């Protein structure tokens, strides 16, 4: 993992915007901050806690409760394979397997270059497109295992060109 440099200016702007809401601004604030920082480090969390005047312990409590908030570094690209009932019935195992093979990691892990995190996910609510795959905010489905290398190749290109 390369050392993270935080764009504090943008983070502080987000915090300042939600500060008037106090605690009721905590969840949206954390969501927006994470869009900038990728994950919510203790340093970032302290900044949010101070800005919104919420105890730091409570900020950690919220971060650890929600699966879309990350208290550990994750890849720039998050690959979520739905593995719930309808996707399983339609062959999600093949998609999970293809992702493991392509990325060389297990669900829950991040590639050593910090580019990809792989997750198997409970129902993503796109059951009419099962088996369904979500890469960051992009939606793919129905997908087959053989589609996975092409989809993730494109994401590699996209991240490198950014």
């Amino acid at each position, binding site marked *: 993992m390369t050392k993270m440099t935080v764009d504090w200016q943008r983070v502080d702007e987000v915090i300042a915007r939600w500060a008037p809401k106090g605690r009721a601004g905590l969840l949206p604030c954390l969501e927006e901050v994470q869009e900038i920082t990728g994950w919510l480090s203790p340093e970032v969390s302290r900044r949010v806690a101070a800005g*919104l005047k919420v105890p730091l312990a409570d900020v950690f409590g*919220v971060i650890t409760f*929600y699966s*879309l908030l990350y208290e550990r570094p994750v890849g720039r690209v998050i690959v979520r394979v739905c593995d719930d*009932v309808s996707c399983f*019935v339609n062959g999600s195992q093949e998609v999970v397997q293809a992702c493991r093979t392509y990325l060389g990691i297990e669900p829950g892990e991040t590639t050593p270059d910090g580019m990809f995190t792989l997750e198997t996910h*409970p129902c993503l*609510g796109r*059951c009419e497109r099962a088996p369904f795959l979500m890469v960051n905010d992009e939606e793919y489905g129905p997908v087959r295992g053989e589609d996975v290398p092409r989809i993730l190749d494109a994401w590699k290109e996209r991240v490198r060109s950014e």
Partner: protein
Amino acid sequence: MAEPVLLRRVGHVDPTRLEDYLAWGGFEALRRALLRRPESIVDEVKASGLVGRGGAAFPTGVKWEAVARESRTPKYVVCNADESEPGTFKDRVLMEGDPFVLVEAMAIAGHAVGAEEGYIYVRGEYTRAYERIKNAVEEATRAGFLGDHILDSDVSFHVHVYRGAGAYVCGEETALFESIEGKRGQPRQKPPFPTTHGLFGRPTVINNVETLANIPPIVLHGPEWFRSLGPEDAPGPKLYSVSGAVNAPGVYEAPMSVTLRELIEEYAGGVRNGGRVQAVLVGGAAGTFLGPKELDVPMSFSGLRKVGAALGSGAVMVIDEQVDMWEVLLRLARFFAHESCGKCYPCQLGTQRQLEIVRRMASGRIRYQDILRLRDIQATMADASICGLGQTAGNAILSGLRVMGLDVS
């Protein structure tokens, strides 16, 4: 199949354009509602017989009336758009395809119960739905359908759009309030109920997306029309999310007299590859498995109750004979163990023990006492958990074992 009510605009309008919504009769119901006394709107919703479409099937008008009678202000209207029940995607289809209807319905609700602020809490993974809803709120505000003095009336209503962050339990209404308030999304003990102590401890109406989508049509066409759309004990249209081993998975609108067989064979194009139904999970992970001999059940609250199931969110997940049911049950057990919030012990411990037993059974090591133990866990969770998550966490497992012929009572 009759002209749809809830899906009427979905796929036919550009959901990002207010002009399209207006051209299709949008905001006409709000216009009319603003000319009427709040009580008459509440009465009409009560008379329509509309009950909540999120899973609990509570009469919507009764909820509204309770909040309307509260003298404490501020009050809130909250839209539960945290659709996370596995196999359920109807609210997503509505939000992506017809987002303005929610905005209109919430403004009507605000006028009816005397609330000036509303919150829409959209599931975190529903990125597109969130963007569409946010856009709809901004456009409606710009055009004067939201904000101060809506359409030059003395009614004001503002809407905030929140995004969830990945927690199934936040679909439980009080957990959702906690989440908006910036806390861990753990359910509260009830009573007190949201109608007196809801968001920020204030009187709150909380309705599901599909429930709200019924409001503008009720205001426009009246309760008698609404009642004529379904069987006597289940008025109005219903959305069903049909998925799994079917040829045409999707969201279908039907009266609640529709049978499970009709939904699978006529609406969703039948079982794939000409195969046969092994089991159908009705109502999502919190729901109940039915077997191939139970397909003629009407998909209404009372119809399903007769076979020991519940309509819940209207999810229909079809499992054909090619699928290993143990793998399905294992996923459901894992789901509840993962999503249990940990606040109350029956659920926190019960979902873990349930997973351990199902995992062992799935690996072929089945013990004589397993079924009895699972029944005991299910009964304990149903009786003693503080929210619906734990109360229903054993249903799918036990009913699945029954369909497999393992739990013979």
